[in-house]
């Protein structure tokens, strides 16, 4: 096999080298993933919390329906619907750029998975935690804000880490609606240069590096959030 990495410095026909194009594409991948992550965490935390509320059957149903809806349709189909169907049904959305629609699609899709983890985290806490909040005279919102969620999020850090890495990998599906991210770059540059192997190696390496960076970042957060003396996650019989 003949390697040729020098073509990365060739002009792609648009006044930039293939290397610059690839780095741009990496930037798009990271932006889509980062923004979708914010959407997914906010909605996931909200819906996951809804599913555990003691006296609000309708919010529980809303949370459950949310999870089932976004978990049982393939991401690619969801992206197509956000991109092609939603703007047609709601003309307001015609003004919204495609990039934002993909961020919403990926964010909503992932929020269902986050919500499932948040629910599991909250339900893994002993009931005494909730009662303790009530005994202190906290409202439901305060109990969740100050007692339950801070504990639940620390417990679910490992699955949240792997969901965050999944989100980064899933951002590759954005190629289907022509977002100029890494997979799109790989497909187009492969066709233009016929240097598929070199391009795929470079793109695959960038994905692996990004996933590893996400992993380290989440591990850092997990460590920073740790409460001394309170052992969580994976410890047998930990917690109070």
């Amino acid at each position, binding site marked *: 096999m003949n390697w040729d990495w020098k073509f990365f410095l060739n002009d792609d026909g648009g006044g930039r080298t293939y290397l610059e194009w690839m780095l741009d594409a990496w930037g798009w991948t990271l932006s889509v993933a980062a923004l979708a992550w914010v959407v997914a965490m906010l909605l996931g935390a909200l819906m996951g919390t809804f599913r555990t509320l003691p006296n609000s059957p309708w919010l529980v149903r809303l949370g459950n329906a949310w999870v*089932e*809806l976004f*978990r*049982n*349709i*393939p*991401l*690619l*189909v*969801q992206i*197509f*619907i956000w991109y*092609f*169907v939603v703007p*047609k*049904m*709601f003309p307001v959305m015609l003004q919204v750029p495609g990039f934002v629609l993909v961020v919403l699609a990926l964010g909503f899709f992932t929020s269902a998975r986050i919500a499932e983890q948040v629910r599991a985290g909250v339900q893994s806490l002993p009931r005494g935690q909730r009662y303790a909040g009530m005994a202190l005279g906290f409202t439901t919102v305060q109990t969740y804000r100050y007692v339950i969620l801070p504990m639940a999020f620390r417990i679910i850090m490992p699955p949240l880490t792997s969901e965050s*890495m999944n989100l980064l*990998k*899933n*951002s*590759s*599906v954005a*190629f*289907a609606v022509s977002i100029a991210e890494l*997979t799109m770059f*790989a*497909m187009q540059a*492969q066709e233009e240069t016929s240097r*598929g*192997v070199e391009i*795929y190696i470079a*793109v*695959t390496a960038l*994905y*692996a590096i990004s*996933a*590893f960076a996400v992993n380290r970042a989440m591990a850092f957060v997990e460590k920073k959030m740790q409460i001394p003396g309170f052992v969580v996650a994976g410890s047998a019989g930990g917690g109070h």
Partner: protein
Amino acid sequence: MLGLDLSFFNWEIISKFVKNGFIFSVQLTVIATLGGIVLGTLLALMRLSGKKALVIPATIYVNGMRSIPLVMVILWFFLLVPAIIGRPIGAELSATITFVAFEAAYFSEIMRAGIQSISRGQVNAGRALGMTYSQNMRLIILPQAFRNMVPVLLTQTIILFQDTSLVYAIGAYDLLKGFTTAGKIYGRTEEAYLLAAVVYFVICFGMSYLVKRLQSRIAIIR
């Protein structure tokens, strides 16, 4: 709903465009599940063997596959398999090979957890009966590990069925492609996407409901 017309989708269109795609998606799911479980079990056995020459390559394979997006794996195989065997192959065959290889990594993690969930006493009991390693695995450990993991394996199969839509990247004719092709021909793309979503939802929701019921039944038996 706002300007949508679902009535054009009739039985004729379904049998002409959607049926073949549906058959391919199901076929891909079944082959990838069976092939993935067999290869995945082998990979899990390699990783648990304690022999460096087996542990290291299996670990690299599993972690490597799990750290790249499926779309990239699909593209890699579509590029490499024809180069290796020296003749072009169709998108459908390439997709099938890719999914078996890719899912093996995920199934191996499930099987590894399943094997590790079997108590040491079972392993020792097999040894005490004078069984060889392979007899012990085949007759004592794997049947129990497999049974414990059935709900997780089925859940992975549902995810796998959803992931088959990603063969879009190499243009294979699957369930989604069946809908979009019909939608394009009749100028009804939006309706086609919505119907595709409904079909995927009904199948996946129904299957996960069955898995949940199965799970509770297995839990009672224990």
